Each structure stands twice: as C-alpha cells, then as structure tokens.
C-alpha cells in the first residue's frame, strides 16, 4: 500500500508546476529558488487557446440514485418499473405517476439509446415545477432532449473491477471502509479507493496543469464555493475557497478596516505590517500553513475587485448562490488571466435515513433549478460547450427502504450510484459506464441477485459498481485537457481499469 503511494508521488513530483512551486516556496520550502529557475516549460506544452471548466456538484450525505433514475417501462424481467415498485412500494418510497396506484411516472421520461431506446424517468423534481419562490426555469430534464444531459450509471468506489461474486468471496480488494460517509467521500474526492489520500483529484490536476495552462493566472486553478475540500487540495497547490454570491466577488476576500483599495496613513502602515507578519515565524508549521492560506486570499482579493454581473436568474438557494458565484468567476476569467478552472459546490442533507420522500424531492428541485440556471448562463456567456457540470456523492442508498410510512421512510448507506453530467461538451444524451451483470449499465433492481453486494435473506440492495469513480473522473479530466500520459498521476489506480474513457465527453481541445 505504502509503496503504491510512493510510486504515485514519485510520478507527480516530476510534474510539479512552476507557478505552484513558486507559490509555496516561502512557506513550505518546497524547493530552492535556483531549482525553480531550472524548471522550464517544454516547448510542446502550449498555453491553451480556449477556456474550459469542470464544475463538481457534490451531493453530500449520499443521494439515493435509485429514486433519481427509474426504469419507466415494463420490458424485461429484472429491471423495469414493476421491480422498482415491488422493492419500494409497500413502505411508501416508490415514486409513481399516480397518487392512488403505482404506475410509471409521467413528465420526466427519457429515452435511453444504450438500452434499446427504452423509457426511463428522472425524479419528477428534475422536471418542470409549479411556479413558486425559487422556481426560475424548467429544470434539467429538458436538457436530455437537447442532448446536453447524460447519466453515468452504477458508478462507485472500486480498487479494481469487481462483481458480486468477487465481492462475496473476497478475491478482489475492496474499497477502504465501504459504507462509511467520510471515507467514501474521501475516495470520490481523492480519486482512489485503496487507501487514504492526502490530496484530491482536482488538486492533483492543478499541480500538474497550473503552470502549463494558466501561466500568469491571478487565482488558483481550483475554486471551492463550499470550503476547502479534499477534492481541491493539491500536493503543491492550494485552492481558493470563497463564499457564495450573497457576497460580491469584490468583498468575498476583502479584509475590513484598512480602507482598501487605497489605504493611507496608519491603515497603510498596519496593512504592510499585517502582510509582513505572515513572512515570519514560518518554522512553526501550523503558523506557516495559516499564513500561506491568508497569502493566497490576499493575492486573489486584489484580482477580484472589478465587478461583473450575470444575466440569468438563479434560484436563491444555497446551491443556486454557489453556482451563481461560479458563473461570476467564469465571467471574470479574462481579468483573472486563467484558461482552465475546476470548481466545487455542494448540496447537503442527502443522508436520508428518514423522511426521504419530502427531503430528496426538495433537494433535487434545488439541484435541478440551480444546475439549469447555470447551464443557461453558460449559454448566455457562449460557454455551454466549454463548461461541464457533473455530480458526485458519498454513495447511493439501499434499494430496500429503512422504516415505513409517509414522513418516516428512508434508506441506509449503499454503494453504486448514478451521476449526472450537464453541458454541451457531452457526446449525447444517454447512459454511460460499463455493462454490469445484466448486460446493461443499469443495475438489476432486485435483492440478493446479480448486482447486490448484500447476500442472504436480509439483502437490502447495495449495488456493486460496474464503473469506478476513477473511470468517471478520468473521462472528465481528459476532456479538460489532462494528457493520457498524466492520467495515472491524477488517478493513481486508473491502471487497474482497462477503459479510461467512458465516451460521454467529446475529445479534448486540439
């Protein structure tokens, strides 16, 4: 285990970016100034001529994929609406097209070319809503028909390809601490499942690409609108973390009381001292770390001063304000002298052990409204092909409900889950990912059978993923511009999987 980590680190070290190293030199002493000068850019690494961004929308707590994408047909024997209704109906968890009987959904159907053009449905919350506060658009369901929404199904944490059989007979290593929130979040964000990560996959992409893609960039490659996350941490680069659009970009990192941007007199003297103190006592590592974070903030603040606006209406929800802030940052991309960015936003409370029906509906409405507004704004900025939103979550939830009855019924922690990808950069509206035991990428909705990791009469339906997080993420990273040769630096265990491109994204920029 340790050896693998070393090997990975060895590879990534060779590729540390110049800007990244320079940023941290003062604080963590990563290299000498002489060494930094020697790190020259290779001639074949051209600064990109276009802009691209990835926007990670993390569904904290573990969104129940089984109620987000539902087979809406009666074809086949293991994977249709009746199987779904049988598994969840008695406890009141099955979504239905009728309030009186369990029948397929209406209004959010999608046709899936990959599975014989059969009809599936999205959770109704992703479709058109009754007008109300914070209902500002028609939601993301519409984007399927426009070819701007794709789903990657039964994705999950894996060390290597795995089946129900190899899971149950322990012949393939299992992800570290399955079903535990914190560990599964770390594996999605860390981009590996065999061990604890010190860094996240966006952070490692930033380590690799900052100097090459964003020379002269005034802010880090990675920005979080929801605190510092493992996803955003590199070995040698730090993310920007800022508040949502309730605070303007000009104020989001502005220290109060100095009379910025033009301090004078004692304010100026104090500001200079405030900056100078952060260059002192750096031999204490916690002091150095705190000073370094503040340095990044102060540098970014100067770059964020000129105001921008967006033209699209965003819902005034947490996720709406986060994505609006991302849209504002993207609008400033030229000022910030930046060509490649990764953003992180999140929506919480998906850990629906209880009261799932109302909770998930409420959350998915927020999600759909915010993601659609963001997509529309990218269209307005003529960037819809250049910016891709994608979801991640801790895990999916048990097909078998926990508890029963309205207001009570929920689900427990499970595994393989469905992810949504939104943007003009997708290949086509379809299901993607490896085929599972039933010959399709969609799991078999029954207990103690082909895709269930649980065994025996109490099996609850926890899908063994057919596709790994790394395969999903690597497909996105490749579109973003990470060369194939560097994928193993960003995803140390990608070599365990034959396919590194699931095909849902168009080719990288030439």
């Amino acid at each position, binding site marked *: 285990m340790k050896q693998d980590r070393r090997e990975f680190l060895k590879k990534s070290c060779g590729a540390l970016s110049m800007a990244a190293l320079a940023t941290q030199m003062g604080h963590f002493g990563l290299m000498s100034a002489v060494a930094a000068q020697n790190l020259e850019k290779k001639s074949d690494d051209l600064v990109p001529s276009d802009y691209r961004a990835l926007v990670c929308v993390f569904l904290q707590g573990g969104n129940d994929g089984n109620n987000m994408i539902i087979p809406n047909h009666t074809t086949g024997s293991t994977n249709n609406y009746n199987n779904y209704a049988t598994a969840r109906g008695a406890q009141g968890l099955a979504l239905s097209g009728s309030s009186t009987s369990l029948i397929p959904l209406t209004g959010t159907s999608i046709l899936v070319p990959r599975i014989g053009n059969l009809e599936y449905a999205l959770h109704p919350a992703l479709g058109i809503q009754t007008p109300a506060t914070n209902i500002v658009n028609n939601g993301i369901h519409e984007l399927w028909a426009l070819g701007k929404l794709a789903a990657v199904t039964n994705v999950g944490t894996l060390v290597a390809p795995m089946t129900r059989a190899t899971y149950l007979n322990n012949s393939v290593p299992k992800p570290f601490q399955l079903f535990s929130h914190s560990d599964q979040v770390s594996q999605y964000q860390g981009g590996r499942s065999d061990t604890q990560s010190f860094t996240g996959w966006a952070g490692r992409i930033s380590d690799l690409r900052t100097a090459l893609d964003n020379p002269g960039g005034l802010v880090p490659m990675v920005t979080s609108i929801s605190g510092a996350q493992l996803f955003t941490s590199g070995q040698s680069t730090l993310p920007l973390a800022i508040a949502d659009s309730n605070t303007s970009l000009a104020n989001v990192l502005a220290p*109060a009381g100095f009379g910025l941007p033009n301090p004078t007199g004692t304010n100026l003297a*104090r500001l200079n001292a*405030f900056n100078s103190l952060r260059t002192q006592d750096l031999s204490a590592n916690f*002091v150095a770390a705190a000073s370094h974070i503040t340095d990044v903030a102060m540098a970014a603040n100067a770059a964020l001063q000129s105001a921008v606006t967006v033209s699209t209406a965003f819902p005034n929800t947490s996720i709406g304000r986060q994505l609006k802030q991302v849209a504002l940052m993207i609008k400033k991309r030229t000022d910030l002298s930046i060509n490649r960015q990764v953003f992180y936003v999140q929506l919480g409370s998906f850990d629906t052990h209880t009261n799932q029906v109302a909770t998930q509906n409420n959350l998915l409405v927020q999600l759909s409204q915010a993601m659609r507004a963001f997509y529309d704004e990218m269209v307005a900025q003529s960037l819809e092909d250049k910016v891709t939103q994608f979801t991640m979550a801790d895990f999916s939830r048990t097909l078998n409900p926990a508890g029963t009855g309205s207001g009570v019924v929920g689900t427990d922690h499970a595994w393989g889950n469905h992810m949504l990808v939104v943007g003009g950069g997708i290949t086509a509206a379809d299901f993607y990912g490896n085929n599972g035991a039933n010959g399709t990428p969609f799991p078999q909705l029954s207990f103690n059978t082909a895709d269930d990791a649980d065994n025996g009469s109490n099996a609850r339906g926890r899908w063994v993923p057919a596709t790994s997080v790394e395969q999903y993420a690597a497909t996105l990273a490749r579109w973003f511009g990470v060369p194939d040769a560097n994928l193993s630096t960003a995803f140390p265990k990608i070599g365990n999987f034959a396919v590194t491109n699931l095909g849902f994204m168009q080719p990288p920029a030439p």
Partner: protein
Amino acid sequence: MKIKMSRVLLRILTLILALGVCSFAGFGQDDPDPNSPTPILLSAQDSTRALASSADGITKRPLGKILPQAFKPDSTIALYVTNVSLMKGEGANAFRIYVEDVKGHSYRYPVLDLQPVAGFQGVYAVIVRLTDDIGFWEPPTADGDVLVRLTWRGLTSNRVRLGLGQIGGGIKDDPGSVPTPLGTATLTNKKGRISSPNYVGYKWSGDRTRFLEQATFGPTPDLDNRIRRIGLKAWLAEQFQAPYPSANNPFPNNPLKPGTPPADCDNEQTITPDVPVTCFRDTYSMYQPQTWFFREAFYGDAQLRHRVAWALAQIWVTSGVDIQQGRHMVEYDKILANNAFGNYRTLMKQMTLDPTMGDYLSMALSTKNNPNENYAREIMQLFTVGLFMLNQDGTLQLDASNNPIPTYDQTTVNNMTKVLTGWTLCNNGCPNSVSGTPNFIDPMVLVTNNHDLTAKTLLNYPGSTTSTIAACSNCTNSTNIATYANASMDKALDNIFYHPNVGPFVSRNLIQKLVTSDPTPAYVGRVAAVFNDNGFGVRGDLQAVIKAILLDPEARGDVKSDPNYGKLREPVLFATNILRAFGVRSADGLSQSDGYMTGRSEFTGMAQTPFMSPTVFNFYPPDYNVPGTALNGPEFAIMNTGTAITRTNFVNRFVFTAIPIPVSSPNAPNGTSLDFTDLQDLSTADPTGNLLLDELDRRMLHNTMSATMRSTILPVVTSVAASNPLSRVRQAIYLVATSSQYQVQR
C-alpha cells in the same frame, strides 16, 4: 471600576518585576517547574554532523570514537540524544525524528527503540529506521546530507547533519547552530530546568497562559492571578467541584416546539404578529442555547466543565441544522456537561437514550422490521472505537501486509442495529410529554413490539467477554421483552466500552480538542492508560483523563519549540480567547454581553456555529491533514481563503467597533464590546509603545513574540500620536490577534 484599577496596578507591579527592579518569591502555592529540559542531539566534536552509528554498533565502539559515515536509505541506525529526563515507562514512542532534505521536503523516520548508553550517564541511543513513514513526498534521494531533528514533549532538539547515501551536500545548517559533542551537553537539573528563563513577570507565566488556553475559553488576568496563587492542581480540584452553569446563567428552559407553533409565536409577523415580537426567538429558536453558550464561555466560573462539554459536543455531534429548535439542544448539552467529569460508560448510555441523538441519528425510528443503521454505525465509528484497530498509544495496528485492520464490518453494524431497535421518543406518558409534540427532554423509551429478539453477534476483540447476545427465550410478554432489550443494550454498550480502542481513541480526540493536533503516541498512551484505569481500577473516568491530559509534560511548559506542536484555534475558541483577554462586556460598557455572536456574518463566516455542525462528522474531522503537508491539523478543515479573511474581519469588528445594540433587530439587546482602558493606561505611561507590546506579548502570546514581530508592530503603534492611546492599542491588538502566530495555539 475598582476592579479595573486594581488590574492596572497589578500589571504595573508585574512590569516592575520584569524590569528587575525588585524580585521576591511568588506568594501562595508554587507548582513544580512545568518545563522539560530541551533535548540535544549529539554531534561530532568540531562540526554539526550527527553522532551516528549503525544500530548494532552501539556497543562496538566507544561513543567518542564514532567516525562520520553515510547511511543507506532504509537502514537502521543509532542517533544519540542527551539532556532528557525520562519518566517511568517513557521510551521510543515519546520521540519523533524529522528529516529535511535539500529540496525542503520533510520526512518522519520511525523511532524503533531507545536505549541508555552504557558508561555515558544521561545519553540515550535513539534507534531509527531511515524510512519515511508518512509518504507525502517521494523518499529523499540518497546523495548527500539531510538535517535531522528530534522532538520530545513538544520541544525540538538542535538539528544535526546526517549523510544519506553519501556525506556532504547543499543543505545549510540552521543559523547559529554549533557543534554539540559529547560532554558539552549534560542535564543541568535532574528534575528539569527552566528552558526559557526569559519569562516576563512571575515564574512560569507562559505555562499558566498556555494552561488557561487549554482548559478554559481563554485566559483572563483574574484567572491568571488565581492560578498563580493556588497552582494548577488546586485550580483543577476547584473546577471539578464548581457549580455549573453559573447562577446568573441557568440552562435555557424553553418549552418544546409543537409541530405547528402558535400563530402569535411562529416568527411570521405579517398576518398575526408575534407577541412579544421576539416570542419565537426566545421560545423555540436556537438563539437561546447559543447565546447561553457564549455567556457561559465569557463569564462562567466552571470554565473547565464548559470547555470539556464543548469538546464532547464535537465528538458526540448532533446538530440544529436538522431540527432547528432550541430546546432539543438543552437536554443533550446537559448530558455532556453532567458527564464531562463523570464516566464515559454513563455518557454512552445517556447519549444512546438521548432523544436529540435518537432523532439526529435515526435510532428513534429503528425497529425490528425496519432497522436503521445510522446510530449503530456512528456510535462505533465516531464516538468510541473508530474504524481501525489501535495500539494503546493510538497508533494503527497493521496486519502482515502492512494494512490497517478494520475494527468491525457491515455484519457488526447490522447486529448492533438489531440490539438498538425499538426505542423511540416518549411523546406520551413521560413527565414532559405533550401530545403531538416531539419530546426532546425525557430519555427515549422502549416500544417492546419493535425490539429485535433474534441472536446478535457484537464486536469481537481480544479479551471481549460479551461478544454475543442470545435470542430471547422467554419474550412472550412485554415485561420480559423489556428486560431482554434493556439487558441487551447494556451488554452491547459494555461490549463497545471495553473494546481496547476506546481509551486511545477518546484520549487522542480529547487531546486534539484541548492541547495539540498531533500528540506523540507516548502522550496518547499515558492518557489512555488513565482512561483504562484511573488508579483505582475504574475504566472511563473522564475527570482523571482530563487531569492527565492537562498536566502531562507534553502539555506543560512555558514554550513549545517543536515545529509541529499546537493547534489552530477553532473559530469559537479564537473568538472567546480574544474577547476574554480584553474584558468582554456590553456595547455601552455598563453590563455584560448578551452572548449574541451566531447571527453575525463575521462570526458565521468562520464556519463554526455552536450546535450547528453541518454533519455528524463535526465542523472538522479529527484526521484532517493540513493542505500541502502530511501534518494532522483538524481545525484546518475550516481554514481556507474565505474563512481566513473572515477571521481578520472578526478581529476588526471587535478591535475597532463592537456588536452594537441594533435599532431594528432585537437580537443583541446588550451588544458586545471590549474594554481597553488598562492598555490605554499602559500606552500613555510609555510613549515608546514597548510596555503595551510587553503586555500583549504576555497576555496573548505567552512571551513568545519574536524580536522581528515586535519590530514589525511597534512602528505602526508609534505612527499614531501618543495622545491617542486608544488608537495605538487598537493597531497593536489587531496585528497580534490577526497574526498566524496568535491564531495557532502553541
């Protein structure tokens, strides 16, 4: 006003002492010297090259005859340390060896053994394997010297050169470093000596300030005086008995919130205005517990209990994010506070039956036909044993292939879940039951029909005595079911409580909350031993555990020099430490603060609102690593560019203005401000600004302000006319309080 005057006088007295005009012994009881000696790594006679030999060479060659040599990576070698004073049982795991290479990368080499060197009193061989056990960086290339540091009890040795692969190379010695050959470094005092004698004022004032940072919500001049008189141990004994909460700040006694609050108390002011307008806030919201919490932190006498309860609230997490009503936090917090100096097993039982926890982690809805795993999983993962088997010093046990060993698996979770089925909120028939209103006051009660009666297997570990529960054989009536269910719960809680992980897991977590983020295994081990047995055969005695944490030599001492020592002040403690240091009071200065912090953006923007953790994983997880390093630093999980600036804005708010009594919103009836009059007096007394900085250095940085830091701040102070002492004081406090040097509690 009287109190203020006497504080000023006292401070002047202190200053006189510091200037050496006169000196006399401190009155009252003296604690023993809290300082450990500073370890010294031995070097060659005339250079800073480490005295080092292969590990099997310790006895082969006299120490004085060891020749400089290079060592291969992964080989096992002996370094030699002196000027340490070991306690009984203190050995290899009290020491850490850090190495820095020419690239500036840092590595940690495992210390395998510690052996006294025959014939050289006070010299120990530190047996080290030259293999990085962190793995953040690729291993150093074996092509020249690295610098080696030894740390012990939060103190660092000098750094010496070690040839890796070959001798020589570009890494530079630390400025001012000198050879430390055998014989020049000896322990000056067997009991240890003052390693930082340049204290200001009374002996060990640095240690007292540090102690108060660890044990309270922030030092105050009054508390410092009290401890100087009675000593740490007597103060602890006093704290263990102190009434809680303060007489003038009783626990909030809000009624439970009905499903639908009455129209005149539902926070809806347009159709039916609330009477009074603050009815909802005062009756049902989180405002009451949150402002109560801060008032107790600002002014309470039972500081230690409040602090430990706050630490426990960050382990046994529930959150108002899910259920925003004040009352549901009150009974929960009482359980934490009542058991802060009690027994962990009692805390486990009361928390398991606590309706707030039962609701938050879904146990209240878990039945035999519809079990819910949430609480069963988290009580093990987060509250007691953790995910992996631990050694008694908190380090991971590893299997033959060097992988950590899971403490339990999904089957254990399923079985624990079964044991905990059937309990639910007591909405009928309990003293506080109100029909149609969730009862967050009385403990949960058993609904016998909902309890699982089948056999269960529990945690299995060496020495476990109750690892199974048989199926119920006589559960034909509810009395028998209740007997079986209650006995099963106790068996399961015992099964968890006696797991050998609990001692090191809980001890390390509490050390992190109170003292330092990355304690040595030896420190964890000493505290865990007390958890396992308080000296009277009792396991889980938290009073003994807290005492062991706070009086440990790794916690104590005037100054800690280990570069990895300390912790980032979490926002709540950052705020209360600043406010307590400068006489927190109402906005007009005439009464106490109302404790209103959590509605203010400069507080919430720091990302830690009490009783509002975003998830059960607390505001930050205990295993979080500081970005860009492999250093464990939980609080850094909420330290980012955004929160870093908000921290400075919090300081700006209180140093330059206050939380005013607002005209439109009634949430700050008293407001909150700081009192700088004593510092203004100092500023007036000394136009050079030095006395002011001396006082801030002592009060905020326990005398560790570097000369550079002082020379950075002083010109800003003197750029303000001496006739404006308030402005001078504000410049100085702003700069100290926003500095990373202050934000890290060391």
